[in-house]
């Protein structure tokens, strides 16, 4: 898991890699891509809801990183910095898509849906395809927090840092996502 509070060595290596990219050194950008493309690809697939658009998004993210590499200061790991770029870009694209389609975009501060009380667990096992579909159906901001925390394994402080929200909002969004997924999967159980 990329850490937002990198050790001195990691930060120093990240700053050095960023400087090498900035100076146009051959192979430096490829090194950045090889370090982070795998994880970012999985994130963009689940944010975009499809692999074709995810490839475009991933390219956009790395192009943005190339253009903005000079603004990287080493106050977070390069991985976290890239995740921040990626999530901002994915959310911008999804929200603009929703606006074009006339849908209401979600906010980070919407109240949680009330859980449906049941006397026994409704989910004994979870089919991965159903789970992927339930994640696709989440509102973008909620999906972003859930993917970062529950799928990628970031802590709430890191999710908050990446998404530019408070830790409380991160917790609330992840919780809301789990409830929505449970409600959707529960109807299939």
């Amino acid at each position, binding site marked *: 898991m990329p850490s937002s509070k990198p050790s001195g060595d990691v930060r120093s290596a990240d*700053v*050095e890699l*960023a*400087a090498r990219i*900035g*100076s*146009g050194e051959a192979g430096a*950008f*490829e090194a950045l*891509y*090889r370090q982070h*493309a*795998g994880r970012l*690809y*999985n994130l963009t*697939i689940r944010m975009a809801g499809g692999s074709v658009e995810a*490839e475009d998004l*991933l*390219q956009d993210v*790395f*192009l943005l990183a*190339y*253009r*903005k*590499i*000079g*603004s*990287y*200061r*080493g106050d977070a790991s390069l991985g976290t910095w890239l995740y*921040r770029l990626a999530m*901002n870009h994915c959310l*911008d694209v999804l929200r603009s898509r929703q606006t074009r389609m006339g849908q209401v975009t979600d906010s980070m501060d919407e109240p949680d849906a009330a*859980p449906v*009380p*049941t*006397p*026994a*667990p*409704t*989910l*004994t*096992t*979870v089919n*991965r395809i159903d*789970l*992927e579909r339930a*994640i696709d159906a989440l509102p973008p901001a909620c999906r972003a927090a*859930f993917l970062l925390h*529950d*799928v990628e394994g970031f802590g709430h402080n890191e999710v908050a840092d990446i998404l*530019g929200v408070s830790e409380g909002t991160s*917790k609330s969004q*992840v*919780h809301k996502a*789990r409830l929505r*997924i*449970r409600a959707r*999967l*529960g109807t299939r159980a």
Partner: protein
Amino acid sequence: MNCHEFPLADCVDGTLSPADERAAERHLEGCPPCRALVADLRTVRAAAFTLDRRQPPADLLDRLQARLKAEPAPRSRVLAWPNTRGAWAVWLAAAATLMLSTIVGVMPLSRSARVPSTPAPNTTLEGSALVDSVEADLQAAESHYERAIQGLEQIAKTDSGELDPQVAAVLQKNLQVVDQAIDESRAALKTEPASSRAQDGLFEAMRTKVALLQQTVELINEMRKGNQAEAGRLMQDLSR
């Protein structure tokens, strides 16, 4: 503890304190609906963590690199720090020129940059000649830095009305702190012209000011473009 007080999210995440965890366990023992909910949400969480991981297509890097060929060289602020004082002067002058030409873009230099092309000071030079050489380099670098600051200040001042008043106030305060550091470094350098510490302190303070002003210009640009996400991130940086 009743169902409304039950710390559901923290219980699922396992982040309760030992005392709260004991209280939560007591509630769960007597509340089947909460127990069922916790079990389901833990199932969702565990399943999410084991989702498939896919690799990007092998040719994606090639496609990306083809797009990169059409890109101008990235703006580089993260340059490797030089090791010698002569190299410092070259680097600072280059940095100032780079910022003027690529970031400000509207403030052409009225004369060509007097970037010293000589290597690091030769240790065989006489002491006074060495001091003169270093001072000349420093003056050239300082002059370029001041030009960068003036250009950026002009843009920031012209467009600062677009900034949130709170952010503008924080920015103003930060600039005052940096200005004070610049004044103090200049005073120290006047007392000890050959002090590398004083020289480094002055350029570090000037570099900080350029970075701060550069962020302000970036923020204004992002706000103009309507890029709220990036503007929000920059505002957070500026407000620190």
